[in-house]
C-alpha cells in the first residue's frame, strides 16, 4: 500500500508544531504528515486533522478568509477527519463566545462557557489540566485506551450537541460535558491528544489506522 498522507489544516490559528510532531511520532514511516493551508493538498490527502486555538470569532474569521470552511465541508463528506480543541467547537452551530459567534453548523448544537460556580465551590476557568475522558460508547479511536484515561485540556467553553447520541466521550468539570463527538467518518475531541502523553499518542495512532467507519 502506498504511503498515505495526513493533512493538518493550518488556517493561521495557533501553533501547530506540537500536533505535527505528535502525528509524525506515531505515524513513523506509515504516513506523511503535511501541515498545509492549500485546498488542493487538503483535498488530495487521505485523512484530515483539523486543529484550532484561540477565540471562536477569530477562528471563524480565519476559516472564511482562507476559504478553508468550504474545504472542511468537502473533506467531511468522505475522509477520516479528526477535530481537536477549537477544531471540535467550530463544527457546532453557535458559540456563546465573543458575544455570540456563528460557527460552521456541521453538527447542530451550541458551545457554552463553564459556570463560574459549582455548588459552593468556585470553578476556575479555563478548565486547564488533566481530566478523565469517559467513553460512553466504544469507538475505533478509543482502541487500547482505558475508559476514564486522563487527557490534557485547556478551554473555557464546551460543546452541547443537539443529538446526544453523537457524544462518545464525557468529562466532568462542574458540569458533565461532551469531550468527544463522533459521526460516521468524523471524530472530534476537546482535549489535546498531542499533549496527553501515552493516551493521546494512542488516540492519534488509532486515527492514522482508522478506516473512517464508526
Amino acid at each position, binding site marked *: 500500500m502506498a504511503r498515505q498522507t495526513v493533512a493538518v489544516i493550518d488556517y493561521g490559528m*495557533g*501553533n501547530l508544531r*506540537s500536533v505535527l510532531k505528535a502525528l509524525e511520532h506515531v505515524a513513523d514511516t506509515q504516513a506523511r504528515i503535511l501541515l498545509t493551508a492549500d485546498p488542493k493538498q487538503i483535498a488530495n490527502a487521505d485523512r484530515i486533522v483539523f486543529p484550532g486555538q*484561540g477565540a471562536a470569532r477569530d477562528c471563524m474569521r480565519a476559516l472564511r478568509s482562507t476559504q478553508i470552511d468550504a474545504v472542511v465541508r468537502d473533506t467531511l463528506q468522505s475522509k477520516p477527519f479528526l477535530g481537536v480543541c477549537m477544531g471540535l467547537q467550530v463544527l457546532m452551530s453557535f458559540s456563546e463566545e465573543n458575544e455570540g459567534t456563528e460557527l460552521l453548523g456541521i453538527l447542530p448544537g451550541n458551545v457554552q462557557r463553564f459556570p463560574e460556580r459549582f455548588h459552593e465551590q468556585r470553578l476556575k476557568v479555563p478548565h486547564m*489540566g488533566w481530566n478523565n475522558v469517559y467513553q460512553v460508547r466504544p469507538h475505533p479511536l478509543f482502541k487500547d485506551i482505558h475508559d476514564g484515561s486522563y487527557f490534557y485540556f485547556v478551554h473555557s467553553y464546551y460543546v452541547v450537541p443537539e443529538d446526544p447520541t453523537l457524544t462518545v466521550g464525557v468529562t*466532568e468539570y*462542574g458540569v458533565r460535558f461532551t469531550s468527544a463527538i463522533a459521526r460516521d467518518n468524523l471524530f472530534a475531541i476537546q482535549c489535546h491528544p498531542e*499533549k496527553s502523553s501515552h493516551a493521546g499518542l494512542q488516540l492519534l495512532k488509532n486515527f492514522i489506522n482508522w478506516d473512517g467507519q464508526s
Partner: protein
Amino acid sequence: MPLAKRIIPCLDVDNGRVVKGVRFVEIRDAGDPVEIARRYDEEGADEITFLDITASSDDRETMVHVVEAVAETVFIPLTVGGGIREIKDIRRMLNAGADKVAINTAAVFNPDFVSEASDKVGSQCIVVAIDAKRVSTTDAEPRWEIFTHGGRKPTGLDAVEWAREMTRRGAGEILLTSMDRDGTQQGFDLELTRSISDAVPVPVIASGGVGTLQHLVDGVTTGKADAVLAASIFHFGVYSIGEAKQYMAAHGVDVRST
C-alpha cells in the same frame, strides 16, 4: 471534580544544559534536557517547566533549540520561563514547541506586556510568575510583597493585589514562589498560596520550599493550589514523580494515574 492536581518538575537550564545535578541512575547524560524530560514524562510528570538561567542574552537562542528537541519526543505540556521580555521571545518559544511561557520581571516593570501578550497569543499561553516575600510582622494581618532579583529587591507591590491585577490583564495561570521558603525544604508558604488562590479566577501553581511529599499534599489541600512545582526533591532522586503521586492519592488528592 476529578480535574487532577498537577505535579510539575522544574528544570534550571544554563546554556542548554540542565544544572542543579539531576540524579537519575540510569541516565547517560545528567545534563541533557531531552533525556531528563523524557524520563520525567515516563514517571508521570503532568507538565515540565524549564527555567532558562542563562546569563547572557546572546545565548538565549540555545533555549529555543532545547525546547524544539524536547517537544519532538515529549508530549506533555511544556512551560518556559526566564528572559521572556518581548512578544518575539514568546513567539519563538511557542513556535519551538512550548505551550506556555512564564513572565516574571518583565511583568513587574511593564504590566502592559502581560496584557499585550495575552491578547496576542491567548491567556492560556501566559503564566505570570510571582516571587513573593512576607513583609508583615507575625501578629499583624499577613501581607506579602513582590520582590525581584531573586528576592533581593522589594517593589512595594502587594502580592495578592498584584496577582489579581495580572489575571485582569490576561494571565492564564499564576506561578507563585515564596521567596521565604524557596530552597529551605520547609514546605510552601501555605497562607500565601491560599490567599492568592482564593483571590484569582485562574489556576495557581505553588512553588518554593518542597522538602517532603506531605508538603505537596499540603500545597493543594491547605494551600488550595491547582498544581505543585518542585525541583530538588525530584532531581536529587529523593522521590520519584510516581512516589509523589501515590502519596498524594493516598491522602485524598486527585492525581493523574498513568
